[in-house]
């Protein structure tokens, strides 16, 4: 078992149930508020220029770590790779035990048992992709079985994809039903629904998909698989956060938002935190409701923390590559 360190705080949260039925799916999509692309992008760009105070910056950087899903989703992932990554997840900086651990590790189903064993008792959760990630277009029964299997193997959280083939084809009720079935197969594991915003074609669609996924009982809506060329962007994330905010107003339910793919620099992670703060408010500034799926980001954040502490810029040689 890996050494324990200041890991993420995950208050046990009951997984969410659907708030609508499949027959309402088409209406949910049709009634989703329109989104003006120019206005949305302008707002995201304006928020990206906020600067935060030094003390808050340290707190924000540590929050970024606490909200991180340290991710590896490569065909070449082995047991050894996962063991090393889990060690890093629990204690990111070997020289500084006060740096918190991440929220979760995110990996492929085959490696779940390794991670479960490594992370037992550390407070770092095990998140697995499942359901035919990243395309989500295999046979439905196989996809649902994969979800049930990783839940049984001990995954705390399961990241699945929205069926874009159904969604973009206008088959909203079927897309909704698949999400509800996935919800059920996941049991008590938290369900993150990946919208793959970069494929949806417009912010209107991103908003519609957000509303659909949240109505189906998603605990989190997530921007991207990280496997296509357009991943998390500030405008996509802002659009999803606005949807989550309105969903909360309508149903009193808080759904989390996860940004994933392409978040490599500390500055970006702080920009996303600014978006959360300005759009969803302080209640969402917790790993229970906000996550960043990343891998190389962690070392960049550690370097920034070092700079805030020592006053000089650090270099990659001083941080472990796991």
């Amino acid at each position, binding site marked *: 078992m890996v050494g324990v360190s200041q890991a993420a705080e995950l208050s046990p949260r009951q997984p969410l149930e659907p708030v609508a039925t499949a027959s309402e799916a088409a209406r949910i999509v049709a009634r989703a508020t329109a989104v*003006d692309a120019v206005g949305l992008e302008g707002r995201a760009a304006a928020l990206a220029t906020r*600067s935060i105070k030094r003390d808050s910056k340290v707190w924000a950087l540590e929050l970024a770590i606490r909200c991180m899903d340290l991710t590896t989703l490569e065909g070449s992932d082995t047991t050894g790779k996962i063991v090393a990554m889990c060690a890093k997840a629990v204690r990111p900086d070997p020289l500084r035990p006060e740096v918190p651990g991440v929220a979760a590790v995110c990996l492929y189903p085959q490696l779940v048992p390794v991670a479960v064993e490594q992370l037992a008792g550390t407070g770092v959760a095990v998140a697995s992709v499942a359901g035919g990630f990243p395309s989500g277009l295999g046979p439905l029964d196989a996809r649902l079985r994969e979800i049930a299997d990783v839940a049984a193997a001990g995954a705390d959280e399961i990241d699945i994809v929205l069926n874009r083939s159904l969604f973009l084809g206008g088959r909203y009720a079927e897309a909704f039903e698949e999400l509800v079935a996935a919800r059920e197969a996941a049991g008590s594991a938290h369900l993150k629904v990946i919208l793959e915003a970069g494929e949806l074609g417009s912010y209107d669609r991103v908003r519609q998909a957000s509303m659909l996924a949240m109505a189906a009982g998603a605990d989190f809506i997530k921007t991207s698989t990280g496997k296509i060329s357009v991943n998390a962007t500030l405008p996509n994330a802002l659009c999803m956060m606005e949807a989550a905010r309105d969903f909360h107003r309508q149903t009193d339910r808080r759904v989390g938002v996860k940004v994933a793919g392409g978040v490599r620099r500390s500055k970006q992670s702080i920009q996303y935190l600014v978006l959360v*703060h300005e759009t969803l408010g302080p209640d969402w500034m917790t790993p229970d409701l906000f996550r960043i799926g990343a891998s190389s980001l962690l070392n960049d954040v550690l370097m920034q923390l070092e700079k805030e502490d020592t006053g000089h810029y650090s270099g990659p040689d001083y941080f472990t590559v796991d």
Partner: protein
Amino acid sequence: MTEAIERPASAAPPWEYASAPESTDIVRLDHRYGLFIGGEFVEPKSGRWFPTISPSTEETLAEVAEADAADVARAVDAARDAAPAWRALAPAERAKYVFRIARQLQERAREFAVLESLNGGKPIKESRDVDIPLAAAHFFYYAGWADKLEYAFPARGTPAPVGVAGQIIPWNFPLLMAAWKLAPALAAGNTTVLKPAETTPLTALLLAQVMQEAELPPGVVNIVTGAGETGAALVDAPVDKIAFTGSTEVGKIIRRSTAGTGKRLTLELGGKAANIVFEDAPLDQAVEGVINGIFFNQGHVCCAGSRLLVQEPVFDALLGKLKDRLQTLRVGDPLDKNTDVGAINSRAQLEKIEELVESGVEEGAEIYQPECLLPERGFWFRPTLFTGVSQSHRIAREEIFGPVLSILTFRTVDEAVEKANNTPYGLSAGVWTEKGSRILHMAQRLRAGVVWANTFNRFDPTSPFGGYKESGFGREGGLHGLEPYLTFDGGAR
């Protein structure tokens, strides 16, 4: 399954935006500024000087000269003397002078932005991201017209400058208004006398220094600082054209003063724009547009969206979002990069706003203001919403020129158009809807010189700006902005 280890509950997030003040070191202010006449800074014949302050701290920044009628006459003479040579220059050469000014503005952008926020009170992120870049762009755009005038007005006769222009500008966008006036005038071959607003002379005077560096021939641009009397003297002086941006009240006075004189006149006056939100609008972006429409530059904007017309079905949702959004607006030090709403430009303006807001409460409208701490010194007003407003309330009819939004409702397109047009003003309007045909239909029926659809407060040197009805006449920007500075009947006097 992993067991979570007990951790102390997290404290409320200690999230604070950096006080990220732009340093004022970049600005070097003189103790005192003379009038800029004939290419030099000179002492005023009036012998009088007055202080100019920072409205966020009330501290004096410098003293500027107060020009009297004799000073104005001297400036007009300088402009008149410089006119023939300036007009005779090859247009391509004239263009290059104006390009130089544009380039200098870009080079010294930060300095100008800081000075603008210091002297006027607007947030640094506005002066840095909007005012100064647009000012440079205006000079760039019009520089390119100087040697292409025959294409601007084909077959209309040989374009020639009108002669000497007197230009009076307001305090809400000091440098930008100077650019709007000077750029087309110079490109068209005119010489000018510019009178900056009483409370915001400093960026115009810095611009004069840029003109010296650009080697602009002496007398082509002259700057006379002062207050109402200086402006009146300029209106009465023997110039060929007057261009004025300011209140409708003063615009009417100028119209009367120039009656029968043959002077060309353009006026850009007040407004009471309707920002119209339909139920199918992209609501979150509409919120940004409404907020920007009335709180950008503290509402000191002639084209501000000061009346919000909301289609009834979406009223509650929109109001809820607006109130939430108001809580996130940061009012404070204009030089702080995170500030959204800066200082009110002057004590006089603050008193006007307070008076009108009181009238709103007295007349029965419901007021909403977010909690925010305001600094002790300086002139400040909280962003304010009024609901339960009817067309007859003063706050729905009179221009407040402050961060105060009056909210009314409507049911149909016809009702929205009727209410929007029901005002003596006609400067701008906003329309928020996803339906393209409705946008164009509204644009057609709204009696306003500028219609913004699914956006607000967008400006560009290529885009003509100006009002209908009592918001004035004449346009600035674009091809149309050249016309007031040209004559086609054979030449200037």
